[in-house]
């Protein structure tokens, strides 16, 4: 009987504890939604990986540093935030502490951002690489696939074995889209080449990603592309005397003899524009902002010395098209792996289709899961 009493007591204790929590509702930031924001603007960034010296979060952090230079802007960031329930608390802590504008930079933060956005209507949220929005939440991303297409062209010109390896992170549309654009770039200059994919299910595991690249080199690939943060695949290519293509930022420092070019992010223009909008009171929620090479958000790294001049010229000519705003990467006819027509001739795939891409184009060898 005593046991029962004690147990009941605990239940009461828990309830009291819970009730204590309800005495004081969380204080919320006191800025009004649409009025121009004067005074100091506090901008927060949430990264999924450590900033480090290169990689996806590092690229976002370069953008943060760019807006930090703007007058009256104060930034903060949290790195290595695990996606899921933890992320929600981190974002909420940021919102609570009076941050006006919060960038959450990984797909996995989408639902967490949305939930916090609903609880903090006066804070503005920008979520990167997802598809959900709210009245006070935009999603944004860059058309990195344009840069992927250009790097694919370089790979298509440079390969001799006509096998190109691609070390890929997770089978999600963002990565699949990149592989497809890359392959379309390869095949636009070299229809005989194929792209082989190895999934690592990691964003940053140099050991595994390097091993994956070596496995591709072993099946005769002579150019290695990648979609992770680590330079492991670059290392592998250099070690074997083969070529590599980087991602996120210029990775030539890791593999000067192998690095042909890289698909790189340049977030500064977008972040500066958003901050200006918030200042001017023109910022709106509910948008999908997807900028491309025309706005300078994506680019390719400088070519390595081994890339011949005529190849550079051809790739730069295509880049000039992107910069003008002409985007023909996903214009049909495009077939999938099995040869089935997915995008008919002359039709341009809509953004919605690109956002949910779960099939490989013809020329990719590998499983799409």
């Amino acid at each position: 009987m005593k046991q029962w009493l004690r147990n009941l007591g605990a239940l009461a204790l828990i309830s009291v504890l819970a009730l204590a929590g309800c005495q004081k509702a969380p204080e919320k930031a006191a800025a009004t939604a649409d009025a121009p924001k004067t005074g100091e603007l506090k901008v927060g960034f949430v990264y999924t990986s450590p900033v480090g010296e290169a990689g996806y979060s590092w690229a976002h952090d370069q953008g943060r540093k760019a807006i930090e230079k703007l007058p009256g802007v104060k930034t903060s960031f949290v790195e290595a935030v695990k996606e899921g329930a933890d992320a929600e608390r981190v974002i909420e802590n940021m919102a609570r502490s009076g941050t006006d504008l919060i960038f959450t930079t990984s797909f996995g933060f989408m639902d967490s951002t949305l939930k916090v956005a609903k609880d903090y209507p006066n804070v503005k949220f920008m979520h990167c690489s997802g598809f959900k929005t709210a009245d006070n939440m935009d999603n944004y991303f860059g058309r990195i696939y344009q840069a992927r297409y250009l790097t694919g062209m370089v790979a298509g010109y440079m390969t001799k074995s006509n096998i190109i390896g691609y070390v890929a992170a997770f089978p999600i549309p963002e990565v699949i889209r990149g592989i497809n654009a890359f392959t379309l770039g390869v095949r636009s200059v070299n229809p005989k080449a194929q792209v082989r994919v190895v999934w690592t299910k990691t964003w940053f595991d140099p050991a595994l990603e390097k091993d994956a690249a070596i496995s591709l080199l072993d099946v005769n690939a002579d150019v290695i592309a990648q979609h992770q943060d680590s330079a492991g695949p670059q290392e592998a290519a250099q070690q074997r005397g083969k070529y590599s293509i980087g991602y996120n930022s210029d990775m030539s420092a890791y593999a000067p003899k192998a690095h042909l070019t890289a698909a790189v992010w340049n977030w500064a223009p977008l972040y500066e524009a958003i901050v200006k909008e918030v200042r001017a009171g023109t910022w709106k929620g509910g948008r999908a902002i997807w900028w491309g090479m025309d706005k300078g958000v994506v680019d390719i790294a400088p070519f390595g010395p081994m890339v011949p001049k005529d190849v550079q010229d051809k790739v730069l000519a295509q880049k000039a098209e992107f910069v003008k705003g002409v985007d023909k990467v996903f214009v049909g006819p495009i077939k999938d792996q099995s040869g089935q027509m997915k995008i008919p001739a002359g039709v341009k795939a809509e953004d919605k289709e690109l956002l949910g891409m779960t099939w490989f184009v013809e020329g990719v060898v590998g499983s799409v899961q």
Partner: protein
Amino acid sequence: MILKIRKREESLGWGVLVVYLGALALALAVCAILLALAGKPALEGLVILFRGAFGQSYSLLDALVKAIPIFLCALGVALSFRMQIWNIGAEGQFALGAVGATFVALSFPGLPALALMPLMFLAAMLAGGAWGLIPAVLRLRLGVSEIISSLMLNYIGILVLEYLVFGAWKDPASFGFPMTAEFVPAGQIAHMGPTLGLSLGKLHWGLLACPLAGVAYSVFLSRTRLGFELAACGEGERVARYAQLPYGFLVLLVMGLGGGLAGLAGCIESSATLGRLQPTVMAGYGYTAIVVAWLARLKPWPIAFTSFLLAALRVGVEVLQLELQIPAAFGQIMEGAILLCVIAGQFFLSYSVTLKRSRPVAAAASKGERA
């Protein structure tokens, strides 16, 4: 001068508290030193940590929400630790529980909440329990170490979850991103606040599972025959078999129940916190549960308290991360350091150490004496 070590005859009484506080202080000191080494303000860091964990009503509520899965997993782990079965597999059992619950939620969306919820709980406990039974069977039939097999099943369980979420269960409306469709409202555990008309943050009705499980746990151990037999098995397999206790059955029982509890935690976490299944449901609660179980010396009340403390620690570390840019791994260091110090400190609970002025005996290497 030598130290004389004796086994204590009686319990230490209030000394227990002193030992625990001492161990905690030592662990905190180690952590402060590490902060200082990393060039961060050590004292300020600890203050921020505690303020972040206990300073606000919402942080306490956050910790309470986080304590739910930790408590359930820790209870399951403690059950098997009681008979020296080292179940390290709560993490994988948690994953399978989430998978089981999701299977029900996706398969029978038309059921009313009164039928769907219990079915989800049942499926989660069955799936988690089955995952826990694998190492138990392997141990009983073949003598395979349950430590390793349950640990490897963690990795496999998480990959099973990923396989389903990246494959068959992927929501067509999620643009190919790895997540299932949102559960129907009947399959989602609701927040407590709106129903009670109170502002309770993210606290949800899954909390009720904790007192229920806790009471069941203590009643089972203190009121049932099986519970007594379980306690008797604490001395190890040989003793248990000698006393003709149903050792094999008990191993199956604790692993099955432990897995079931971890599975329940997985169900609650996916249904209440996420509302769907996605790989991010895995947050390492299964490992924290082991720390909790041992710190609490496998007793239900202390487990509840310690779950809350370690959950608060995790919440506090997030604030630390935000304010001082300290990596989240700091929380792990603290967990590890506290556990190491407490294990070492527990020595003083069962042994007394006295200083004796005497000449070393001839057998200086005798194991009872330590210079």
